[in-house]
């Protein structure tokens, strides 16, 4: 899309028909080829110094997440403590990028994190289904922001998107972005419900055109959550979008990434698809709860030469 004239992008938002024409004019994605590419990227062998570097980067890109009905103030405080000092025994261990919680726990997280550089992200817009009126979704967003959320993770209206009502999905993102004020907006595509890579590419472009600061794969509540092929299509989309508009958009892979090995594969994919510019917590995130402990375990193994049992790492 290097050559797409900017006025075309403006036109895309001008009418439902123009938006549809634009999204359906994007190059298709060949499923077999896309999956073969990620399989080939997964064979990269990351060892010794590069592994140490990648483990630290992976830790620093984590949105440490708890999104359960049974979440408590105590659990969020514990999670915040872990975010600040993932490995209490090793001061050189980097902090995670953010804590991700429901809106009612944002204030707790802000208080626990103080003025550290760990961000607070809140899901909003009737997460995870998005099945609510626009007013309710926007109020949800405003609640999160006024409680102090730095980042808002919204869900797109999959019903509207899948039925072809792109304009409605687009308008909701625009409205939510407005409700965010200065908070960063991450738009969750819920790729597990979009079914095709063509749809993932269209939803990515739709979200970026509507003003997303980040595009995010999944809520974590639908299977499959993040997969490598889906994330690859989204990385190609942000690369092409920057080529066309000059604006850089971040990518967040969320859900299902639970081992250090997987996390490193994602970082390799980022490196070889969009390069250094995205190898930074400001532009690439991994949404996870279990992943951090495996990263810490591998990190300890790398420095001490020995594996410690899981009891040596805190549960949250």
């Amino acid at each position, binding site marked *: *899309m*290097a*050559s797409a004239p900017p006025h075309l992008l403006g036109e895309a938002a001008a009418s439902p028909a123009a938006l549809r024409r634009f999204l359906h004019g994007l*190059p*298709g*994605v*060949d499923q*077999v*080829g*896309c999956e*073969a*590419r990620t399989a080939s990227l997964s*064979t*990269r*062998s*990351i*060892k*010794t*110094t*590069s*592994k140490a*570097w*990648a483990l630290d*980067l992976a830790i620093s890109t984590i949105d440490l997440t708890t999104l359960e009905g049974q979440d408590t103030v105590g659990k969020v405080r514990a999670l915040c403590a872990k975010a600040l000092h993932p490995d209490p025994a090793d001061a050189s261990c980097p902090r995670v990028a953010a804590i991700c919680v429901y809106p009612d726990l944002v204030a707790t997280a802000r208080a626990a994190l103080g003025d550290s550089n760990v961000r607070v992200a809140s899901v909003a817009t009737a997460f995870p289904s998005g099945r609510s009126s626009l007013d309710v979704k926007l109020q949800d967003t405003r609640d999160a922001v006024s409680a102090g959320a730095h980042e808002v993770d919204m869900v797109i209206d999959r019903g509207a998107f899948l039925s072809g009502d792109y304009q409605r999905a687009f308008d909701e993102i625009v409205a939510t972005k407005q409700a965010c004020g200065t908070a960063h907006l991450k738009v969750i595509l819920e790729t597990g419900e979009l079914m095709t890579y063509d749809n993932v590419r269209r939803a990515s472009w739709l979200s970026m055109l509507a003003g997303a600061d980040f595009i995010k794969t999944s809520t974590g509540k639908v299977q499959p959550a993040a997969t490598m092929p889906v994330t690859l299509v989204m990385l*190609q989309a942000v690369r092409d979008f920057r*080529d066309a508009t000059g604006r850089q958009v971040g990518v967040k892979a969320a859900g299902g990434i639970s081992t250090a090995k997987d996390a490193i594969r994602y*970082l*390799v994919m980022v*490196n*070889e698809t969009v390069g*250094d510019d995205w*190898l*930074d917590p400001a532009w690439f995130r991994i949404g996870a709860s279990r992943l951090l402990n495996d990263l810490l375990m591998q990190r300890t193994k790398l420095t001490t030469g020995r594996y410690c049992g899981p009891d040596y790492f805190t549960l949250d």
Partner: protein
Amino acid sequence: MSFEYAPAPESRSVVDLKSSYGLFIDGNWVDGSAHSFKSVSPATEEVLAEISEASDDDVDAAVKAARRAFTRVWAPMSGVERAKYLYRIARILQERARELAVLESLDNGKPIKESRDVDVPLVAAYFFYYAGWADKLDHAGMGTNPQPLGVAGQVIPWNFPLLMLAWKIAPALACGNTVVLKPAETTSLTALLFAEICQQADLPPGVVNIVTGAGDTGRAVVAHPGVDKVAFTGSTEVGKAIARTVAGTNKSVTLELGGKAANIVFDDAPLDQAVEGIVNGIFFNQGHVCCAGSRLLVQESVYDDVLTRLKQRMATLRIGDPLDKNTDIGAINSAEQLAKIRELSEVGETEGAERWSAPCELPDRGFWFAPTIFTGVSQAHRIAREEIFGPVLSVLTFRTPAEAVEKANNTPFGLSAGVWTDKGSRILWVANRLRAGVVWSNTFNRFDPTSPFGGYKESGFGREGGRHGLEAYLAH
């Protein structure tokens, strides 16, 4: 921040290299009666081993051994029993896969990820596939009782040393023939390791004979009056010489020769995957692939877009130590081949095409050539007509599907082609008009034992692989 990959070399210790190798004739290792020559690692120019050169007498001994094995043991043996040997060989190939992959990368220069993930798994797959045919030949559609031809003289190239051996030996043995095989002089080592595997599998002596050497040895194999069937994979020039040698004899021949495949990208193609396919089509195995997609035909309306993406992608290719697990592009197989690639690339520039190479550092020692594309190429340029057999892509454009087909077919070769479009009807329309033995749609350089492979025109005749591959080794 920048993500550097630390060296991740596969260990050489799994390979037990001998300082010198003899010939494998009649189940035994014998010293060649002529000279010996050296096999070097193209990545470092390190001498790996001394290899015997088979003289005419050695070839004669090999053919006689193959004849004895054919008449006394292999042809009379039931298909069920032959299959057992082939299955056993296939299993040993899998068991020793790592050793074979490391040796192949050492000797040939191809990246370990290709020898490990493509060559060696396919080698085992071809043996398994043809093992399955050995007791079903009556049902292959070639009459009720098809018979083997006798002794097959097989000459193979250096680009896929072990895989080409498998393409030749597996169907020949399944059909009840015995073989005398000559590997390429720069890449004999995996064929010699295969001979060890034949011993390990208790294959009856003389069923497989390996004679090493250069052109003279190959000529002796092809010209030997005791050879009933000649199978060759290699250059069109040598293929023509072989055709002249066997003319007027009773020998049957299959030739798999050069190519100058068109990889056609339409404007509605899945572009990111098409770029992967272009890269895989020409840079896989350093472009030392007879069916390489060495002519890229791009529809004008997406030309800029495709070129931008292609250059971005090429900049991420990792060139270097073939044994490093993260290497994408290995070494050029020989100084001679490197000189040929350089010469044709210079001709490309002289003829006015624009050259662009991926920014990369090449090692000081060994034979290396950076992945390169030429734009502004026309059909008249030598780089669009001749097989370069290296990591060099010629880019041409077209406007209409008819023009794409016309340009794609406008070559003396006809081995393979690729079509990239999201439109199914266009794939079929184009594929039906392409004069190429293999047409890949929305992929490139995919191989499978069940699929026949072979050329039109100067790319040769006969088919290898699949049920069709049996025809070359059966009288019917």
